[in-house]
């Protein structure tokens, strides 16, 4: 065993020396079977895997106690689709609470700026004079386009959104026959309800809902404090010491 002295805890596994007769031994990976049997063993592995792909074969392997639990793992898509985990992400979508015009997005354009491949394009809704239009007390986007062919599913738009307005969806069947307009998802196709979000991602939506609930509670408390009648002001002004 050779070990380097300069790096104290470094242990190394070197080749094992063996008192074998053939020439190029004294190296890693000593053969454990007699010459000629290695190829046969490899073929036996293949035979076992092949037998295991059929139900009869699996029964046979179990009988011979050779079944190792691996076998046919192929799923015949599209009849059977793989169930993905909750966190699986593919393409973003915009969240609305209740009705489609109550979307959380305020067209702040932070996601557009932070998106690495620049696949998001947002135009804020403005009236004829050029000032922003408000709905439910917030500004909103007029157009919100995301290009499917450019988006790389990195989820940075979700990370940076201050309003939890954009989340990752897990549908991946966006294939289309033409490039161009069909590969761009506009605001209508992107808007999905909060109930949908809760259905596909229960634990993540629970965190988001809790956060939004806390924010709303704080806003309500601040509004209530501002609207509460002021306490009766004393006649004498406060003297600053």
């Amino acid at each position: 065993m050779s070990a380097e002295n300069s790096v104290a805890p470094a242990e190394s596994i070197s080749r094992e020396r063996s008192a074998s007769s053939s020439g190029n031994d004294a190296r890693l990976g000593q053969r454990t079977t007699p010459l000629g049997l290695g190829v046969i063993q490899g073929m036996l592995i293949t035979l076992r895997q092949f037998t295991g792909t059929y139900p009869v074969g699996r029964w046979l392997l179990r009988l011979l106690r050779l079944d190792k639990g691996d076998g046919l793992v192929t799923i015949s898509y599209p009849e059977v689709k793989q169930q993905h985990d909750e966190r699986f992400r593919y393409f973003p979508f915009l969240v609305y609470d209740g009705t489609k015009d109550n979307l959380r997005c305020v067209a702040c354009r932070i996601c557009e700026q932070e998106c690495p491949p620049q696949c998001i394009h947002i135009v804020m809704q403005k009236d004829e004079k050029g000032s922003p239009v408000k709905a439910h007390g917030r500004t909103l986007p007029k157009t919100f386009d995301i290009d499917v062919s450019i988006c790389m599913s990195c989820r940075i738009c979700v990370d940076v959104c201050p309003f939890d307005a954009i989340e990752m969806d897990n549908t991946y069947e966006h294939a289309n026959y033409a490039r161009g307009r069909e590969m761009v998802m506009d605001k209508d196709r992107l808007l999905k309800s909060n109930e949908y979000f809760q259905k596909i991602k229960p634990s993540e939506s629970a965190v988001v809902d809790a956060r939004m609930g806390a924010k709303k509670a704080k806003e309500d408390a601040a509004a209530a404090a501002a609207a509460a009648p002021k306490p009766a002001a004393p006649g004498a002004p406060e003297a600053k010491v």
Partner: protein
Amino acid sequence: MATRQAPLMPESVLQSDVLEVNLGPQHPSTHGVFRMIASLDGETIVKLKPCFGYMHRNHEQIAEGITYIASFPYTDRLDYLCSMTNNFGLAVAIEKLGGIPISERGEYIRVIMAELTRLVNHTAVTGFLLNDMGAFGTPLLYAFREREKILDLFESASGSRMMCNYIRPGGVREDVTDAWLDRARGIVREYPRFLDEFEKLLRDNEIVRQRTQNVGVLPKDLAVSASITGPMLRATGVNYDIRKVDGYSIYPRFNFKVPLGSIGDVFDRYYVRVLEMRESLKILEQALKDIPKTSPHLSPKGQAMGKAPRTFKPAKGEAYGRIESPKGELGFFLVSDGTPRPYRYHVRAPSFINLTILEDMCLGHKVADAIVILGSVDIVLGEVDR
């Protein structure tokens, strides 16, 4: 009259010439769009020049125009088989540049992900070797079937099988659940059984031994001088593993060995990778046992950086952060000028530099050996060309 023997075939008529042949860029066994211009004398290689750049996507210049966090999805696509370790390398470099502390649980999760990635990569490469030698995909798919189990783990943690974009400066982007940790422990328990079978395929198979032993021998001093790192270097016998030398992250807490080869041929490189997989399993067992339960997965500075990337303006300076990726030393060289975007961003890609001595290893061998030797260098074109 003396009979003069006329020469049957004069020298000038049957002159053998050197044939220049393109191996690639479209070739099923060159691991990507990689081209080798080989000069052949018969079937023997007398000169071999690698020629690449077909996958050059100008990653370094893109990174100069976007924030540090926005580079993470692009690093996934560098060495696309090992996206977690690419993220890890950039995170280490950014932490060095900006002085970002790392949370304890984040460190453990990162090490778990890095070692799982090492398993994923070495399994794939060993499967590809058997494919390159003509086994037409069957052992490759056995390897990929095992790999899929780990990729499913990555999907549960990060949301994506291969382009994970998961590790962030300061920790990891999202925490893993206890159920995930149990699944990981299950996989770590089951993996050695697959490894035993696979190792048998490699070690005892006479065809594999005939085709890989004493093929593509790399001497020790040439390897060090040519800046070779990773399993290719350790197969020649040089004990240099950045996890041990630099001791970055929390690797010094784990007990693992560094497998070394002796001759530095193709067989040694593959066997070193199989032994490294076993060492990775040891690290995984220890990490999965010791992972702390109460620490957050991302330090506060990292969280702030993830939420508002433009507020991260590191001080002016340079930093070079390097990690031991499954292919070798992956380094990120960052120069900051005080703005949210890097001034200079350079990737020291192991596959790129390991190709330096491809010619030296292939000279004198046959064309089929060149494919096997290229497979043992373990390149991924995303990293070579960036």
